[in-house]
């Protein structure tokens, strides 16, 4: 307590009393003429206070501005990425066309061209269209945006993985989720509240499109254990789960894989053919 008492009883800088004693005039004496030092001190103090006020005033909306700027920049970059992806798709299609016209001249060339097409479709690097089945998965309604709490009424990455695997098993020739074509190296995984497919975040309701024989896929998928599980989830937790046959689905191409380590094994027949 004595500290606080000291603090409030000797709140005036003792230097003033000492200086007054040195000058030899006690309290109540003649007030000294204010000098330039005083003006300088007052100037510095006022300046400091004004600077602090200006800073506080300037900084308050700056945080909000930074946030808005960041959000705008993210949107801009996302648009740029979309545009570039579109350009890549167009250029790749042009390359394919040029290659086909170049190869169409000879019989072996035409054969090669057809084989490249088939390989592209199988590897997911060519856009495809055809009949198939579309499965829709969605979070249960009334799911708060809090993200915490229960994940029972949300679609998880493993649900999507199971559905995709069931579609492959049912005979799908090409599968895409929300416009993200799945290839041999695609990953479907949860990152926080979002699901990433090919490292692109997608949001529900998730449309899983599978190109293939619609009747065969639908029959096999409907009978699969995954479909049974999803149906019971839908009854228990209100998840959205339905599927339908489609006469025409358009699946985009996946981004081209850059193979860094894998090299094709030189086939003996090809070598023999060249000789």
């Amino acid at each position, binding site marked *: 307590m004595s500290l606080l008492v000291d603090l409030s*009883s000797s709140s005036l800088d003792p230097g003033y009393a000492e200086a007054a004693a040195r000058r030899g005039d006690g309290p109540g004496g003649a007030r000294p003429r204010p000098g330039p030092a005083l003006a300088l001190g007052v100037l510095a103090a006022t300046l400091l206070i004004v600077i602090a006020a200006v800073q506080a005033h300037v900084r308050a909306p700056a945080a909000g501005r930074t946030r808005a700027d960041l959000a705008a920049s993210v949107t801009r970059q996302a648009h740029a990425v979309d545009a570039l992806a579109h350009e890549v798709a167009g250029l790749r299609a042009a390359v394919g066309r040029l290659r086909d016209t170049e190869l169409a001249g000879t019989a072996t060339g035409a054969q090669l061209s057809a084989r490249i097409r088939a390989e592209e479709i199988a590897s997911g690097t060519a856009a495809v269209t055809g009949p198939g089945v579309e499965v829709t998965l969605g979070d249960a309604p009334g799911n708060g945006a809090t993200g915490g709490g229960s994940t029972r009424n949300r679609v998880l990455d493993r649900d999507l993985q199971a559905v995709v695997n069931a579609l492959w098993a049912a005979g799908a020739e090409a599968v895409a989720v929300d416009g993200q074509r799945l290839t041999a190296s695609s990953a479907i995984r949860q990152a926080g509240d979002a699901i990433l497919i090919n490292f692109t975040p997608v949001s529900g309701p998730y449309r899983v499109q599978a190109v293939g024989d619609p009747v065969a896929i639908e029959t096999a998928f409907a009978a699969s254990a995954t479909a049974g599980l999803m149906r019971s989830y839908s009854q228990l937790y209100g998840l959205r789960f339905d599927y339908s046959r489609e006469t025409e689905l358009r699946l985009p191409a996946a981004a081209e894989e850059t193979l860094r380590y894998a090299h094709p094994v030189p086939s003996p027949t090809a070598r023999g053919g060249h000789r």
Partner: protein
Amino acid sequence: MIVLLAVVAGVVSGLVLQPNVPLDLQPYLPIAVVAALDALFGGVRAWLEGIFDDKVFVVSFVGNVLVASLIVYLGDKLGVGGELSTGIVVVLGIRIFSNAAAIRRHLFRA
């Protein structure tokens, strides 16, 4: 008169120049302001009591600001910056209040 001029000059130059405080110094600005207020109130009280001395005022002002900033800086380095800032605000706040009370007594005799 000279004091009023200094106040006006400080406000005007602060508003006109709008100096950009470096990011590293920004955390110490509020503490420096509290220290400056303490020096100002002390100076006014000393002036009213007739023992004002401009050298003491300037030295106490600069010293207060520097020491307060230094303590907060040290606290930041040690991980107790917030606590030390609170301590400084409490100590200087008590001084400001009791100086303000003394000024009030001098001015209004109440």
